[in-house]
């Protein structure tokens, strides 16, 4: 089942908005590669909540010990010491299911399967009330992101490939498109190269934050709700770091990043939105402002 019942299942691209990626917060203290992964995790949590508004759900900052204590469903003394601190990515208490989120490859599937199994064993051993927990199913969707007019459209796709394991992958449109709707209709996606991920990856998190504030329009693509989870993955985070520092050390190349600002790095976007872009098309995007 598609997990988009809360979104109406529209397929028209007519409501698609432009998402032009703004600059990263220059005062950011978080290295952008972490920012990227964290933003992705937060997005999946948010989207799960959007799709399951009536459920009691815990996300990956909550330990199994905490979940059992808060819900009163289990006895934490039945958990092994290490098990009290483990945090499933999504634990839906009354649906009695959990999800672990991993990259869309064999290693991700293997790791996700093992982690989900570990969590289920611990939860079900401590459970005192009701049905056992099982691996969650049927959670899938996609997100499209446009960086600037006339660029490739990026696509983030996720699916529950086996119970309890959600896997994600990242592709881009084969051609340059003016809009996400056009790319979506063309439906031709290709794998991203490492160079592209390195070049654009830092901007993805910015776009993700902007997209979150417009979930109703995101849903307009396919009726599925998209999530982005560790878009590049843990292994690639290292790659990103290495690539950035290598780039800085080499002192060459047109894409050399500006000096570090509070530990963070900004990867310049080679094709900024042209000045003629109407202000009305600039979204909240990364600037989900907190009114004060």
């Amino acid at each position, binding site marked *: *089942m598609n997990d988009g*019942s809360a979104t109406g299942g529209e397929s028209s691209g007519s409501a698609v908005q432009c998402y032009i990626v703004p600059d990263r*917060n220059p*005062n*950011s*203290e*978080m290295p952008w590669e972490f920012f990227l992964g*964290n*933003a992705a995790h*937060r997005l999946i*949590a*948010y989207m799960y*909540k959007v799709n*399951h*508004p*009536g*459920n*009691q759900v815990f*996300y990956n*900052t*909550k*330990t199994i*010990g*905490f979940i*059992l*204590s*808060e*819900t*009163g*469903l289990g006895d*934490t*003394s039945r*958990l092994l010491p290490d098990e*009290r601190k483990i945090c499933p990515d999504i634990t839906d*208490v*009354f*649906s*009695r299911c959990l999800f672990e989120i991993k990259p869309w490859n064999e290693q991700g599937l293997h790791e996700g399967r093992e982690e989900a199994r570990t969590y289920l064993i611990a939860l079900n051993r401590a459970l005192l*009330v*009701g*049905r056992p927990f099982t691996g969650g199913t*049927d959670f899938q969707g996609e997100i499209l992101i446009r960086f600037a007019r006339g660029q490739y459209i990026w696509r983030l796709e996720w699916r529950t490939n086996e119970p309890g394991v959600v896997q994600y992958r990242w592709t881009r449109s084969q051609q340059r498109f003016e809009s996400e709707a056009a790319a979506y209709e063309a439906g031709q996606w290709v794998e991203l190269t490492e160079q592209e991920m390195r070049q654009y990856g830092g901007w993805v998190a910015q776009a993700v*934050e902007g997209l*979150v*504030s417009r*979930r109703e329009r995101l849903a307009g693509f396919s009726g599925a709700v998209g999530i982005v989870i560790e878009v590049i993955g843990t292994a690639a985070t290292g790659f990103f770091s290495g690539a950035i520092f290598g780039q800085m050390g080499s002192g060459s190349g047109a894409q050399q990043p500006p000096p570090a600002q509070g530990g963070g790095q900004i990867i310049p976007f080679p094709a900024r939105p042209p000045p003629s872009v109407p202000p009305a098309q600039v979204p*909240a995007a990364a600037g*989900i*402002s*907190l*009114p*004060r």
Partner: protein
Amino acid sequence: MTLGQSSSLQLPSFLYGSYPSVHQKTQREGLWCGEKYREDGSFPTPRQMLEVTSGDVVVAHEVVDFQRERPTWRLYMVSNLKNSLYEALDWQNSITVRDAYEAFFRETAWGALHFAISPSAPVSAECTALRLQAVLRFWEPLQSARYLFSTPNDALTLEELMVASCDWAMDAWCPARNAPVRTRLETAAEHMAQATQEDSLEAILRQMPRAFAHARDLKHREVLADPAFQRQRLTTLDPLAFERVSGAYTAELIGKLYDWDYELGMH
């Protein structure tokens, strides 16, 4: 008497800062609470309270906290404090500790709000009445802030926050939708505080269609949708199980539907 009651809204300083900062401070506070609880069964009042400027935004749910580097009020991080508290006590009697912590800090504006919008089990009629009454006692100061709860860029008024988080209680226990939110909460709390088992049963049955709409992948939808079946199942619950659903909290009712669906599949 309430702890630190003030006409303006004040929150503990450990709830203000960037996410990493609040994470660290709440963890420390939880350990301190654990030490004190171990000593004499009480909790320390926060060392420092800060006044929330009128119109300041308080992040009240973790999933909408997207700007984690930005210093702000992070009320939802009370959960991190509690995790640290349980850990400090080696996870012994964590449910008793949980309840004691709530009873103590429900007498503060920030505690009252946190426990109303992020309730621990049981979300019973009795417990919910206490939580709503606590929020109502601090209504004026709590009104001075704005809250992020449902969407990351839409700060809610207190009334809107209570609708977003506790509409189930108002719908079940004060169906008069045209009344002001505060009035509805007062009525709901009053009814819940005095609720008999039959009152709860009626409230649950009123709310079952809402729970049913949220429950996915039920294999026996026709049977489960029948109010006679629901009533029969509810009346056979043991007292503890009935208490859990007695407030008609949507999430608990969804859980019951899944339970019954599972049981039907076993036969």
